[in-house]
């Protein structure tokens, strides 16, 4: 560009020559910048920030043995079924015409909305939650230290009178509902919960209730 302007138009040529001389000391960075931005765009678009999260859960060694000598003071059992259905009953399960002559257990329908399981859990778990709230207050006012606070909370969660939640699912329940329930339990700070197998009598009752 710059070297052909020897003959034509004096003023103009002079001007161009001058500018060319001046700019020759600088490197044209445009291609490099183009490339940099191209790479930048590429990495912005392809990089994934969300590392997978996980929740840890323990499963009982053999759920069959467990359900036999299950002696829980304060239990609630959730049963998942098809179409996001979830039922619950309190305490122990009594089939119709049981030998203790107790009234047979009835299943109550609930759902995953705020008014459903969440409210129910907060309600049933209130004694422990109240105790935890007191601990929270003591911790905030620096009455107890960090480790003591954690220990006391775990003690409170593992208290034998604290609510125990049993989670059962039938053949048509989907995995998401189970996770949603466990998540809800974690949110409500429930310490004692287990995913266990259904008893045949429960399944029978479920099939009758969920027609």
């Amino acid at each position: 560009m710059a070297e052909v302007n020897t003959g034509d138009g004096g003023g103009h040529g002079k001007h161009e020559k001058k500018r060319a001389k001046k700019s020759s000391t600088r490197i044209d960075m445009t291609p490099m910048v183009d490339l940099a931005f191209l790479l930048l765009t590429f990495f912005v678009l392809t990089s994934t920030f969300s590392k997978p999260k996980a929740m840890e859960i323990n499963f009982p060694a053999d759920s069959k043995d467990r359900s036999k000598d299950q002696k829980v003071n304060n239990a609630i059992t959730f049963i998942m079924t098809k179409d996001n259905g979830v039922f619950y009953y309190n305490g122990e399960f009594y089939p119709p015409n049981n030998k203790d002559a107790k009234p047979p257990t009835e299943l109550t329908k609930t759902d995953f909305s705020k008014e459903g399981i969440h409210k129910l859990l907060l309600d049933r778990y209130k004694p422990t939650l109240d105790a935890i709230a007191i601990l929270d207050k003591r911790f905030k006012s620096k009455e107890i230290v960090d480790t003591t606070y954690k220990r006391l909370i775990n003690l409170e969660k593992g208290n034998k009178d604290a609510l125990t939640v049993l989670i059962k699912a039938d053949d048509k329940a989907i995995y998401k509902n189970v996770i949603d329930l466990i998540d809800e339990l974690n949110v409500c700070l429930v310490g004692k919960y287990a995913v266990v197998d259904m008893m045949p009598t429960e399944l029978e009752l479920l099939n009758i209730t969920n027609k």
Partner: protein
Amino acid sequence: MPKSNPSLDMTPMVDLAFLLVTFFMLTASARVSEPVVVDTPSSNSDKLLPENVILVTIDDKGKAYYNINNYDVRIKTLERMGAQYKVDFNEKEKKEFAKMTSFGVPIETLKQYINMDENGRLAAKSPGIPLDSLNNQLGDWIQFGRIEAAKQAKTQKDKAEKASRAFKYEPIRFAIKADGKANYINVKQVIKVFTDKEIYRFNLITNLEKGNE
């Protein structure tokens, strides 16, 4: 200013651009192509998944896929599986297998699956790893993977001790990554495979819930 230079000084911008490029290059991890896309349910758990993990993926049809992270452990596990099920894998196939991610084919067709190229693998229909009590291949994969991982950790520990370096032993963890739409019964089957091997603690992989509390 009639004679001011029309070109901008781009240096700060370029500096910034390269800084960002460097940042993204260093933080980015290459997305691996999995044979199946799984839509995990969301939860409020913010625990990160441990690095050293045996991962069983369950898709929405209930088929199981197996994955183990470590390159050497993968090769060893494949050798053990090959010996168990009388399938011979040559060196090339072992190397290729070590580079793969999750797979969901029974050991009988694994050889063909390994010999496909990446696109072929993605296009191939995975029947899932058999896990019923008669043909519990998933259980064997888990068992061998676990043994080999423990062995490798031991050799690393010995090596570290010889060089008098500190070694942080991290036991292998077990993770289940299931699709939210999968039937719970399928997940339960996989859990049973684990509990039969006396593994009771799992990480269930979830997405972090979007703030709708």
